[in-house]
C-alpha cells in the first residue's frame, strides 16, 4: 500500500468514526448533541451528571448496539463480496452466490414457522446459511476448485432452498408469514446486545481472515495453473476464503436479515477508486461497507417517522449510485 492509499484509508476510517458519532445523534427521540455527550460521560462517571434515564436507555440499549451491528454487517457483506469477486474472477458475484441467503432465509422460516423459541431465527439462519455453502462444496466435490462448477452448484443449492422456503410459506399460518416477511426484508430495528454478542465475534473473525488473505486473493485471481506453479494449494486457499466469507455473511444475515446489493456495489465503488488490487480493495471495502450501511441506516431512522427496512434502502440508494458511477467512469473493473 503506497502512502497516498494509506492516507486515503485513514481518512475513510476517520470519516467512519465521525459518522458513527454523528449517527448516535439521529433517531426519533430527540436528544441534543450535548446531552448525548453527557450521557456518554455519565456511563463512566455515573454520579457526575443527572440526566433522564431514558437517555441512557436509548443510547446504550437501542442506538449503540444498532450502530455497532450496522457497522459490522456493512463490513462483513462488502468484504465478503469483494473477496468472492476476486476468488471467482467475476465482478458480478456477490456474497450470496453460494446459496447463503436462501439457506439463511429457509433457516429463519423453519424457526419462525415450526421450531419457535427453542431454535431462534438468528441461530437457525446462521446454521442453514453455513449448511447451504457446505452443501455447495459437497455437491461440487473434488471439482470444487473449478469456478463455473462452484457458481452453478451455488445456483442449484440456492434454488433448492428457495423451493423449500416456498413450501414452508405454503404451509405456514398467516401470522407466522407476517413475521417471516418482515425478517426477509432485512432490518436492524430490533438489534439487541444479545445479537451483538452472538454475531460480532463471528463477523470479525471472518473479516480479519479475509483481510489477512488479501494479498493471496491477487494470486488466486490468476489462472489455477499459474497459482499451482507458485506452489500454492489452490483448493485449500479457496476453501479458506469461502469459509471466512461464509462465516461473516452468515453471521450478518442471521441478525440483520437479507440486505442485498452491499457486497456487489461497495467493492465496485472501491475498485473505481483504488483499482483492482485486492490488497487495497479488501480494507477499503471494509471501511466503505460500514459507511454505506451506516448512512443507509441513518436514512431509515431519520427520514420518516416510520421505519423502512434497510434492505429496501440499500437497493434504492445503491443501484442508482452504482449506475451513475459506472456511466461516469466508462470502465468495467475486473
Amino acid at each position: 500500500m503506497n502512502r497516498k492509499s494509506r492516507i486515503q484509508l485513514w481518512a475513510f476510517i476517520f470519516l467512519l468514526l465521525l459518522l458513527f458519532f454523528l449517527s448516535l445523534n439521529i433517531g426519533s427521540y430527540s436528544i441534543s448533541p450535548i446531552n448525548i455527550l453527557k450521557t456518554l460521560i455519565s456511563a463512566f462517571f455515573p454520579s457526575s451528571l443527572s440526566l433522564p434515564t431514558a437517555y441512557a436507555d436509548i443510547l446504550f440499549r437501542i442506538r449503540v448496539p444498532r450502530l455497532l451491528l450496522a457497522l459490522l454487517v456493512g463490513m462483513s457483506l462488502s468484504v465478503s463480496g469483494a473477496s468472492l469477486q476476486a476468488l471467482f474472477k467475476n465482478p458480478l458475484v456477490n456474497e450470496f452466490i453460494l446459496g447463503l441467503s436462501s439457506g439463511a432465509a429457509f433457516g429463519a422460516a423453519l424457526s419462525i414457522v415450526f421450531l419457535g423459541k427453542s431454535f431462534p431465527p438468528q441461530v437457525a439462519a446462521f446454521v442453514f446459511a453455513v449448511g447451504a455453502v457446505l452443501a455447495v462444496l459437497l455437491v461440487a466435490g473434488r471439482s470444487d476448485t473449478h469456478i463455473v462448477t462452484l457458481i452453478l452448484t451455488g445456483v442449484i443449492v440456492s434454488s433448492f432452498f428457495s423451493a423449500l422456503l416456498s413450501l414452508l410459506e405454503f404451509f405456514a399460518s398467516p401470522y407466522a408469514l407476517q413475521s417471516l416477511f418482515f425478517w426477509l426484508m432485512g432490518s436492524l430495528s430490533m438489534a439487541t446486545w444479545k445479537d451483538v454478542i452472538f454475531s460480532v465475534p463471528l463477523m470479525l473473525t471472518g473479516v480479519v481472515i479475509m483481510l489477512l488473505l488479501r494479498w493471496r486473493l491477487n494470486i488466486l485471481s490468476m489462472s489455477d495453473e499459474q497459482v499451482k506453479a507458485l506452489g500454492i494449494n489452490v483448493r485449500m486457499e479457496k476453501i479458506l476464503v469461502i469459509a471466512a466469507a461464509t462465516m461473516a455473511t452468515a453471521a450478518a444475515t442471521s441478525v440483520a436479515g437479507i440486505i442485498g446489493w452491499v457486497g456487489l456495489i461497495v467493492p465496485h465503488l472501491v475498485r473505481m477508486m483504488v483499482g483492482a488490487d485486492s490488497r487495497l480493495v479488501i480494507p477499503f471495502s471494509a471501511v466503505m461497507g460500514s459507511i454505506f450501511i451506516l448512512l443507509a441506516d441513518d436514512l431509515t431512522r431519520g427520514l420518516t417517522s416510520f421505519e423502512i427496512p434497510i434492505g429496501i434502502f440499500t437497493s434504492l440508494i445503491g443501484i442508482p449510485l452504482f449506475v451513475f458511477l459506472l456511466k461516469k467512469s466508462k470502465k468495467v473493473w475486473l
Partner: protein
Amino acid sequence: MISLKKRHASLFLALFWMLMAGWAISIGSQEKPYFKIVDDLSRTVKIPRNTSRILSLQPEMTRIVFALGAGDQLVGLDYFIRRYDHLFPLISARHSNLPLVSISPESVNIELVLRLKPDVIFASPSEFQVPESIQAKTGIPVLALSSMGRFEKLIREIRLAGQVIGRKKRAEELISYFLEKTGFISSRISASKEEEKPRVYLSFWSSLSRPPVFYEPVNVAGGINVAEGLLPEYLGTLGTVVELEKIYEWDPDIILVQGNYPPGQRVVSVPLILSDRRLESLKAVRNKKVFYTFGFWYWWDPAEVLVETVYLAKLFYPQKFEDVDVEIEGNAIFNKFYGIKEGFTALCRILECREWLHE
C-alpha cells in the same frame, strides 16, 4: 238504446282499464330474480334472491353468517377458520367438519367449489384478483366484503350479509345492539377532556415495532392511538413499522399487545415487554401498564371486537365503568351474537387472558 250502448261501452272501457292496471301492477311487483350489490372492490355483483347455499372464504364473514343464524347454510370452510381460528370451535364445533375449500388465501379448490354448488360466495377484498377469478371460473357470484378494520364497514358488511342471505331483520337487530353498546361507551366518556385520554401504543402482528395506524376500538373506548395518522389514510394500510425509540418519543401511558395469538405462538407478550431492558424507562413499563387486547384475527369477530371495546373502555376509565363487569358483559355479547353461553370466558381461557375473568 244509445244510452244503453254508451253504458255498455263505458263499462267495457272501465273493465279494460282495470285489467290493464292490474296487469301493470302485477308486472311491477314481480321482482327480478336477482339484485345488485357493489362490493369492496367496487365490483357490481348480481346476487340471486334466494340463496340457500353459502360459501365463505373470508373468516370475518363466516362469523357474521353464524351470527345471522345461517350457519347451517354454509357448505364449506376456508383454511383459516378450519385450521387456525380458536374462536370458531366455540361458535360451532359441529360445523368444523365442513369441506375445506382453500389452503391459502389465493389457493382455492375450484372443482370442490363447483361440487358444493353454493348460490353465493363471500371472499376477502384483500386478495384483489381472487374474487373475480373465482367468479369467472365458476359463474357463481362472488362478493368481496370485509370491515378492513372500520366499525362503519363492519356494520355495512353485516347489513349486506343480511340482505344476501335473507336475514335482514336479524342483521338490523345485531347492528342496533352493536350501536347501542358503542353508544353507551361514548356517552360515558363524552365528558372526558382530550388531555385526560390515555395515550396508547399497540404492538400488533407479532412485533414490538409494528403498530396499527388506526384501531377504532381504542378511539371508541376513549383512548388515543399514538401511531394514528403515521401513514396517510388514502394508502389504506393498517400497520407500519417504527423504531423502538419512536415509542420513547411517544412515551405512552398504556401498551397493548395483540392477544389473539394462542399463548404458545406469541412472539411478543406482556411479560416479554415488561422484562425488556430497552424499554424499562417507558412510562407504561415503569407503571406496569402493559396489557393484552384482542386485536385483529383475520379482520374481526363482531362479538369479540365489541367486548374488546367494552374492555378497553373499562381499562382506560376504570372509575367511569366501575359498574361494568367485563366477563358478564362479554358473555352476554357472545350469547347475543352466537347464542352460546360463557363464550367469552371460554375464549379468555384459551388465550390465557385470565385477568379479564373473575378467577
